[in-house]
């Protein structure tokens, strides 16, 4: 005999069976409409870019010297809107220096670069408004909750007060962190911290997102999650991604184009398949890397590098 409805307990099978589809349906509708809106925004944005024409990021003989050392030597590259561009190279090739110059943290010794039409030397603030930056280290503030980390950045990026809540919950959803927003970040796993940082860097819908070794020190599952989110980010918002990495599998999977840096110069540039076929018939990207940088992959890592990775690994736990 069936019991009357008001005697059903919450969590009993019959209650769940009844309510789950009811709850699921509106969620799915909402998600679909959000996605459609994003895609619409993206097409509008791409149309604008096409009207403007040309690249979103350009460097012109960009050079950085530290004393006698030439860290970056006359780098000239150009990146199209919506591209995922990877900068790879052995330790000390100058990858991080390039990112620091493009994010206006480091003034170039010579040459120049522009991001979305703003010069990194003359219009640094303009550049800072249109970029997002995820540094190498896990740098979300562990003493704050995920929500607070995002709130502070929404204020720093001048997101209007009435939009803040919505933006924050959007990025939290997007990065799959909604359930953890009120937990202190120091209780997060390394992969979650990285996703939170990407969320922080995309709050203001940057046109170019810079990621310095986005999956360093993460376990394979967390790396996959980060990759998926980055690809989704480009698909939904049309964000241009500029990343550096040591991992050839990452570059191969994510990047539309790769530049291999060696001793401050670009040794080779092209799509992963172009680079591979330029070296040999069944070459892997590891072979390409070794060919152009004159180094064996994974042979390297001086003391500083190793201790740095270990330090990050410790933080990631």
């Amino acid at each position: 005999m069936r019991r009357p409805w008001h005697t059903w307990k919450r969590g009993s099978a019959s209650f769940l069976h009844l309510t789950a589809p009811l709850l699921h349906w509106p969620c799915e509708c909402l998600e679909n409409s959000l996605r459609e809106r994003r895609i619409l925004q993206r097409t509008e944005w791409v149309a604008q870019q096409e009207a403007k024409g040309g690249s979103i990021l350009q460097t012109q003989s960009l050079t950085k010297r530290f004393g006698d050392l030439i860290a970056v030597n006359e780098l000239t590259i150009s990146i199209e809107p919506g591209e995922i561009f990877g900068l790879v190279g052995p330790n000390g090739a100058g990858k991080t220096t390039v990112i620091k110059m493009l994010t206006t943290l480091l003034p170039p010794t010579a040459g120049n670069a522009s991001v979305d039409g703003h010069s990194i030397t003359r219009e640094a603030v303009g550049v800072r408004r249109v970029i997002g930056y995820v540094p190498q280290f896990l740098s979300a503030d562990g003493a704050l909750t995920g929500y607070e980390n995002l709130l502070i950045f929404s204020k720093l990026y001048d997101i209007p007060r009435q939009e803040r809540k919505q933006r924050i919950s959007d990025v939290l959803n997007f990065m799959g962190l909604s359930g953890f927003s009120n937990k202190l970040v120091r209780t997060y796993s390394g992969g979650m911290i990285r996703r939170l940082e990407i969320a922080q860097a995309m709050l203001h819908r940057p046109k170019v997102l810079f990621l310095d070794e986005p999956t360093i020190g993460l376990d394979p599952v967390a790396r996959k999650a980060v990759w998926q989110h980055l690809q989704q980010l480009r698909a939904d918002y049309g964000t241009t991604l500029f990343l550096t990495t040591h991992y050839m599998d990452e570059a191969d999977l994510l990047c539309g184009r790769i530049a291999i840096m060696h001793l401050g110069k670009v040794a080779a540039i092209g799509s992963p398949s172009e680079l591979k076929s330029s070296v040999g018939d069944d070459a892997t990207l590891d072979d390409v890397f070794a060919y152009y940088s004159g180094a064996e992959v994974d042979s390297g890592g001086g003391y500083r590098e190793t201790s740095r990775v270990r330090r990050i690994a410790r933080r990631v736990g």
Partner: protein
Amino acid sequence: MQRLGIIDYFGVITNFIGKTLTIAELEARKLHHDFTELLTRAVQPALWLLIFGEVLAQVRAIPTGNLPYIDFMAPGILAQSVLFIAIFYGIAIIWERDLGIVHKFLATPTPRSALVLGKALSAGERGLAQAAIVYALALALGVHLSWNIISLLLVVVVVILGAALFSTFSLIIACLVKTRERFMGIGQILTMPLFFASNAIYPISIMPSWLQAVSQVNPLTYETDALRALMLSNGPTVYGVPFDLLFLVVATAVNVAIGAKLYPRVVI
């Protein structure tokens, strides 16, 4: 260089204030999650007042006019504990640089001076917690405190200024030395003369003349002078509270300006 209209100046200033408060809010939220730090910080002023203060009050070795020694000393200990909090702020800057937090903030369109002043104000937040502790201790020790509301508000201002002043000073040093080890050494070297070459625990008049000269350019002297006048019911002042405030404001502004120039260099 384009000339800015009056509206633009207004925008620049509101932007600066808004961003400064955002950085201060960030630190306040951290304290809110973990205030054990504030409690452990209470130990040091307590030890100074209870041990050093009580002993020297018995000895009556220090000429403080008609003021009981413990009254004379309480504002000095507040100034000192604010100094001790603020002077190691540079360590936090280096730590945040090592974690990449500084990089991330510098890549936002936030004015550098707002980043520096926001940090300075957060030192003020911690300083105010110290003030509450010193007031509680002073009350227990029978110090003749002033409860005039204007004086109390000015104490808040002086504590925040003092904390801001020394934390930006610390930030400047951190930006110059860049490593934690070197900073620790320098921090130790600085706190001693800053504290002892001031009027915090004895009047300047008992010092040899060369040390008096040092004390007279030491901001801690003016901070203590103002606190002594404002905290005590019949507090004496040597330089006058307006001059003390002026000295502290100017010194803080200079430090923030230098700090804002140097802060971006800490990531290089």
